[in-house]
Each structure stands twice: as structure tokens, then as C-alpha cells.
């Protein structure tokens, strides 16, 4: 098992190097340059480019960047003068991850539960209601759900604080809900379908023939088998939840990484784009590794010996 994880980690490093290379050249393909400003004389712009080494041939820039990267140096921001890319991550990632993790736990717990409930009451009113909500949750993007929720519960009713994160649990409620509703809805529908599939499996007949109650059959025999296909979606959910928080962070005024990621692209802040992309890449890779390990935990048939 440890050997397997080790092997996967080595492969992950190679993936990250490829990602770094691709991102480096793709970013350079974007027209314009970070110092383009009509109010600045061309000489100043040139001097700035020279200072950051941006006037060198592109392959040379690449080797310099990769060399620094291998030393663990992600460089400094071009826009926020003198600020290390690492500092951005250190300062803003904790907020993003707090929000991301909470909403992931929220969406998984509620989504799976709702899916199980739907499957047990198939074609009954509660099933229709939950499926209807799930369809809405999938169809409505967070920039629609967010303002509606914020206006209703934050502004009109005044129940919940409209901004910030971390001072009280109340600040979590709305952002976590708005961020998790999409994947929650997907999970509800997915879990409903896999549960209904498992119900017709032969081993459920065996379980029933033992005189188990319907609850025991569901709890002991159905849920674990129904979760297996759901785990596949976990890897991308992890990435989605960390990167997709731009709208939510903006809306609820949460100082997270999402804003900087988006701004870095519009400002052509090369080192910041590169650094954050690689950082998200690493999270995605770790997420997928975690999913593969989890697979083995849930399904003994694909366990690595």
C-alpha cells in the first residue's frame, strides 16, 4: 500500500512538471504584457520587462522559471510589488479551504442522505420534492442562488451575517449552502440512482431472506455498495470546490484565493497565474489519489494488496 502511494506521488510530480510547462507556454500566448499602460512611457515599460527578465527569449525564461520551481521558488507577484506568490497562498488559502471543506462535507452528508431517502420513497411525494429541488440545484448557478439567498436571509430577514468568514458559525451558513448546493444536488440524484440499482441486486434478496428489517437491509447491505460509484465524482468535486469559489467569495466578501486567481489572469501576473495553477493542480492530484485510496477502503474487490 505504501509502495503504491509512493509510486503515485512520484508520478504526480511528473504530472505537475508537465502542467507547469503547458501553463507556462499557454500563458505566454495571451496577447499583451503585464506592463501595458498607456500612461507609462515605453522606456519605463521596457525597463520593467528587463527587471523581471521578460525581454529574454521565451525558452530562456522557461528554464529560469523551471529552475526556480525545482528549488521551490514560485517567484514574486508582478502586480503586487514584492509580494511572494507563496505568501498569497499562505494568507488566502486557509479561508478558501475552510469554506471548501465545510461545503464539501455538507454537500456529501446531505446529498447522500437525500439520495437514500428518495430511493426508499421512490415515486412518493417526498421523492418528487427532493428530486425537484435537486434539479433546481443543478440548473441554477451560484451567481443566481447566492444573491437570492443573501438578499432573503441576510438583508430582508436579517437572520444571518452577509459577509466575512470565521468569526461565528452563522457566517458559514449561507456561503456553505450556496457553494454546496450544486454538488449536493448531483449527489442526491446520483445516490438515488445507485441505491435503486443496488436494491435489485441478488445479494439484497439474500439479505431479505435472512429476516432482516428493511432498515437493516439498507444500512448494512445497500449503502456501502451504492456509494462505490459515487466516489468517482469525489476527485473532481474536490477541485471544483476549491477553484469554483470565486463567485461565493466575492459575494460574501470572503478573502479567499478565488479572487486572486481570476485577477491574476486579467492582470497577466505570470508568476501568480503559474503558482496558483500549480497549487490547484497539486490539490486535484492529491484529491484523486485520496479517491483511489478511498475506493479500496469501500470496495474490497479493487483493494491494492
Amino acid at each position, binding site marked *: 500500500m505504501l509502495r503504491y502511494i509512493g509510486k503515485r506521488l512520484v508520478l504526480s510530480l511528473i504530472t505537475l512538471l508537465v502542467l507547469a510547462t503547458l501553463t507556462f507556454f499557454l500563458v505566454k500566448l495571451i496577447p499583451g504584457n503585464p506592463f501595458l499602460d498607456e500612461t507609462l512611457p515605453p522606456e519605463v515599460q521596457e525597463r520593467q520587462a528587463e527587471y523581471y527578465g521578460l525581454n529574454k527569449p521565451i525558452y530562456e525564461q522557461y528554464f529560469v522559471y523551471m529552475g526556480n520551481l525545482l528549488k521551490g521558488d514560485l517567484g514574486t507577484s508582478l502586480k503586487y510589488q514584492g509580494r511572494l506568490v507563496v505568501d498569497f497562498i499562505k494568507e488566502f488559502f486557509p479561508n478558501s479551504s475552510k469554506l471548501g471543506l465545510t461545503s464539501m462535507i455538507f454537500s456529501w452528508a446531505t446529498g447522500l442522505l437525500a439520495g437514500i431517502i428518495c430511493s426508499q420513497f421512490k415515486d412518493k411525494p417526498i421523492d418528487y420534492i427532493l428530486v425537484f429541488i435537486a434539479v433546481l440545484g443543478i440548473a441554477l448557478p451560484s451567481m443566481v442562488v447566492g444573491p437570492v439567498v443573501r438578499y432573503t436571509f441576510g438583508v430582508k430577514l436579517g437572520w444571518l451575517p452577509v459577509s466575512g468568514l470565521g468569526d461565528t458559525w452563522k457566517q458559514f451558513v449561507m456561503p456553505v449552502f450556496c457553494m454546496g448546493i450544486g454538488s449536493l444536488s448531483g449527489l442526491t440524484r446520483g445516490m438515488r440512482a445507485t441505491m435503486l440499482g443496488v436494491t435489485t*441486486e*441478488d*445479494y439484497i*434478496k*439474500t*439479505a*431479505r*431472506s*435472512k*429476516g*432482516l*428489517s428493511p432498515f*437493516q437491509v439498507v444500512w*448494512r*447491505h445497500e449503502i*456501502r*455498495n451504492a456509494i*462505490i460509484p459515487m466516489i468517482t465524482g469525489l476527485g473532481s468535486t474536490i477541485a471544483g470546490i476549491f477553484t469554483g469559489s470565486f463567485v461565493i467569495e466575492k459575494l460574501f466578501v470572503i478573502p479567499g484565493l478565488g479572487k486572486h486567481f481570476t485577477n491574476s489572469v486579467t492582470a497577466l501576473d505570470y508568476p501568480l497565474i503559474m503558482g496558483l495553477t500549480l497549487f490547484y493542480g497539486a490539490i486535484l492530484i492529491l484529491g484523486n489519489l485520496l479517491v483511489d485510496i478511498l475506493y479500496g477502503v*469501500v*470496495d*474490497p*474487490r479493487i483493494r491494492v494488496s
Partner: protein
Amino acid sequence: MAEMIKKDPVLSVKDLKVSFSTYAGEVQAVRGVTWELGREETIAIVGESGCGKTVSIQTAMGLLAKPAGRIKEGSIIFDGKDITNYTAKQMRWIQGNEMTMIFQDPLTYLNPTMRVGRQIAEAYLQHHPGMKKKDAEERVLEFMRKVSLPNPEENMRRYPHELSGGMRQRVMVAMALICEPKILFADEPTTALDVTIQAQIIDLMKTLKSEISGSIVLITHDLGVVANMAERVYVMYAGQIVEHGCLDEIFENPRHPYTIGLLRSVPRLDTEDKVELAYIPGSPPDLLAPPVGCAFAERCPFAMNICKAWQPEYKYFDETHYSACWLNEPAAMEKWGDITAKGVFGDV
């Protein structure tokens, strides 16, 4: 009939009718069957796929898929109690405890994500509340030894996919017998196994049956297995029992053309090369609209006008042997002579 030989049956099913509601209409899967199971007896119910044999034992055990399937008529008496109208909750005391079932394919009928030891223990723990985990584990090991599973301590921690097909079926047998049931329903227990393993599993079931003094209802279309295990045989066709008799009576002196056809369809090793395999032409009737007359008339080479118009009644040849066929009437006997002697189905 059967009451005469077996007094005080452990299970008796009387005139049972079971139907399923489908989009196409009502499928009459079981159309009035009566059978009995004596204490410490093995009976076989044979017939082709879709003849209602599985449905009738599932109904007896309270495992009918509700609400699509329902008992329309008839009664099920288990151990002196009428369980026909027992609720699902009441049936749960019987299921897995006094009546258990083993199934056709041990791989798909075992939970892939649960260790086999736990799966075996489950029914025992369920029906012995307050049982200590350690004692239950002892019991599991005892039964794993009884079904000759090698290294029980090690194998009880394995998952089904880590065992061979034969071992898995042994797990199923251990699982079904751990509560020492009064009745074991075996729904095609050997169909998914290869031949050498089949014989082992049959021997195992026979030995264990006498050890725990239970009865077995065997469902199969493998007449070799029937000859090996059963004392009495019920032949089912299109949701009805067409013939019943002791093992000898069915194998040596079959009276219903369907039974004769079934027996003739068993591949033989002692025939010459290139003899065409015998079969019964045609297919069973649609149970959405069962025929008014004898259900087998469409495929029966001896069919007469009356067969398609009226259902034949049971006729007793002796205390145990009876069949439902118009050929049992003296007039038909005159026309066809002794059909069992005619041998080949097609030559009529």
C-alpha cells in the same frame, strides 16, 4: 394424496394463486398449486424457467415482491400455523431462522463488500438477540467446518471474490443452515457450479439435512440432481402442478406428456454418436392470458380437442402418483395406447 404418506407436514401450500401486476396486465405466475413437505423430507419442484416454481417458494417464505406480486387465493400452513396473511414483520421471525434459502449463483447472491464470516453470522445474530459476538463467531467457525470450508479462521475474514465458486456455495450453505432451519429452500443450488463441485454440494446438503433434522425443497431443472436428492417430485408447468409422484414413479413411470418430454430431454452418455438432442418443441403459454384448457396442449403431441377446451382434473394412479391429463381417461387410452411406451415424442 400426499397426506396419506406424510402425516403432519411441516409446510403445506394449498391451492395457491399468485399474480403480478405489470404494465401489460396481470401475470398469473402461480395458478393454483398444492404441495406438501413432510418433516425431514426432501421434495423437488421441477419445470422450465418461468413455470412459477421460484415464485411459489418465494411466496411460501414471504419474499414475494410486493406490491406488484400478491397472493390471490390459497393458504400456506407452516408448522401448524396459517402464515398466509402474516405481515412482513411477522414473517421476519421465520425468514432466516425457520425457513432459509440458498440461491443459484453464490457470487451475485453474496454481498461483495462484506466479509463472509459476517455474512454467515448475520442471520444467527438476528435471530438470537443478546448473543455475544464471540459466541456467534464460534458458531460461524463450527458451521464453516461443517460445510468443509478450509481454514475457517482465515476464510471468515475474506470477501466473496477471494473465494472459489465451490467455496462460495459452501458459504451460502453455512449461511442458510446456521440457525438450523426447519425448511431449506434450495433454488437451483447447483446450476452455476461445475459438475464436480455440484456433486460435493449435493452430498453436503444431504448430510447436513439429516444432521439438523430439516426438510429441503429443491427447485431445479436438473433431473440428475433430483434423482440424487429428492424423495418426491412435483412437476410444474405454466403455474400448475401437472404431475406428482415418488421418485421412482416419476422416473420409471411418468404419466404426463410434459414429464415424459422433460425426462427425454436429459442428455444421455450411452447413446450413439450424432443422435439429435431431444427437446420439447414450442414455448410455454403467455401467463398474461393463460389458455382455458390444458396449458400444455399447444406443445403436446397427443393433444385432443378436449385438451384445448377443458382443464383436466387430477387422476390418482396410487396413493402418491397423480397427474392432470386427459390422456388418463379410458377413451384416450384406447386412442393412443400407452404413451409412455411410445418413447420418442416426435414419432407420434
